[in-house]
């Protein structure tokens, strides 16, 4: 078992159009832990995740998964190293059925369907339904289920509770807890209640850089610091 972090990002720079969005991001995600990526709106959290996967071009910097430097690899190659991605806005395929959405995520013709249906029984019931007709919460289940289908060692989860009703938020948080036992998670989340419930470590972005890295409990024990970094009180947003 290697000591290398599950994910290490070093000096990551991203330019979107004329804007220098990420100006040298460096952080690491420890194996088997849940790390929350926090920061004010628009600071570049989603961009960071997308840049990790190569969905957005990087001007400079390195990305490593464990011992391997994956900077030069293409998106699908990086993902095949064992990453499950749950994008902001879910990005389920509206014209495909629920079952097809899941099947698409299969690698090597197999998947942990039992696990997914156990977490989200509704997906089994609605297998033949076109994903475009699902509610937001149901689509979120598809998106998360997709990421859990394979035995991914790393999950990149982007705002999974965005726009969901409170009881769904709770369901998603529970699913994340379950997933945390199976994989390393890097979680972008605005809902600090969820963050406090599942996250062990935090990385805070501001002005295109990392301004804080450390334990979640320690950070949330200082509401003033939380407010300073994130502009909100240390509670559910």
């Amino acid at each position, binding site marked *: 078992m290697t000591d290398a972090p599950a994910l290490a990002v070093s000096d990551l720079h991203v330019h979107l159009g004329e804007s220098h969005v990420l100006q040298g991001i460096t952080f690491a995600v420890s194996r088997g832990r849940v790390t929350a990526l926090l920061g004010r709106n628009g600071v570049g959290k989603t961009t960071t995740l997308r840049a990790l996967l190569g969905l957005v071009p990087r001007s400079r910097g390195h990305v490593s998964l464990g011992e391997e430097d994956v900077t030069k690899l293409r998106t699908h190659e990086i993902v095949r190293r064992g990453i499950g*991605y749950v994008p902001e806005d879910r*990005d389920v*395929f*509206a*014209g*495909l059925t629920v079952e*097809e959405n899941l*099947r*698409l*995520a299969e690698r090597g013709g197999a998947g942990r369907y039992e696990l997914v249906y156990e977490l989200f029984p509704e997906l089994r019931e609605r297998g033949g339904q076109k994903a475009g007709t699902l509610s937001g919460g149901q689509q979120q289940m598809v998106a998360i289920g997709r990421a859990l289908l394979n035995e991914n060692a790393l999950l990149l989860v982007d705002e999974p509770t965005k726009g969901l009703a409170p009881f769904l938020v709770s369901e998603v948080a529970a699913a994340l807890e379950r997933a945390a036992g199976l994989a390393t998670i890097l979680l972008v989340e605005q809902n600090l209640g969820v963050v406090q419930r599942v996250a062990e470590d935090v990385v805070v972005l501001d002005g295109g850089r990392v301004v804080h890295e450390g334990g979640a409990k320690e950070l949330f024990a200082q509401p003033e610091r939380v407010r300073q970094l994130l502009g909100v009180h240390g509670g559910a947003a």
Partner: protein
Amino acid sequence: MTTFVLLTITGLGLGAMYFLVASGLSLIYGLMGVLNFAHGAFITFGAYAGWWISTKVGGSVEGQLLVGAAFAMLVGAVLAAVVELVFIRPLYRRPVEQVLVTVGLALALGALVYGIWGADAKFYPVPDWMLDTTTILGANIPNDRFVEIAVAAVVLVGLISLLRFTRIGLVIRAGVENRAMVTALGIDVRKTFTFVFALGGAVAALAGVLSGVYFGTVDPTRGTTLLIFAFIVVVIGGFGSIGGSAVAAVAVGLVQQYANYYAADWLDWSGAGDVAVMLLLASVLLLRPEGLAPKVAH
């Protein structure tokens, strides 16, 4: 009435060819965002390949045509795959340049055809029974029309089955909707691009062979002529939609035939059909800019 029947079946025959070309174009644009002007070259090369084989192979005319069609589809697939790998793939993140390259290829390959086979039309091997007519509702329909319609129907079913029941069809449908997410699921979408291009090329080549049967000849302008109508069908039918292409192809074929005939009397002019199709395109676009179907492959 008999004229109407003849016009209808002829329109369907033309529509069959338009559909074959449009289906490939539609998938290519829907999945890759590439407007492939070189598609006309696949048609023309396919048509000539079919003709060339028939000059080399003996036996029955049907046999020559069958072998010709098979050979043409192979040529079309290989040509398209080479084009995609060598010219389109390297320009992956540069969509404008991709279109420009297909324009350059259209010009270059088109000129190559002139150079190799000359500008004069060549006679196509058409079996006698296809030249014969069958009487339907009093109208004498040349039998080749039925062949074209049958082939198009088979391809239509084949394509829809491919999309619905195979893994690569699943990838294509998803890719038409959201290419980036497909790669984020660990799928190498570029291999699918080459496949779709090759498939489009094969089907376009088949259309070329059928056009040889329909018109009885093949000449260097065949690809361009069919291509423009195919573009219209794709826009009307919706990008990425096979079903939409089929419906639009039928509409375009029929409108062209009806307008050409009925307006010819009235306006003393035989070009009305083609113009009518252009007007059809313009009207559809004004009412529904995204075509008849939303951007989903089905």
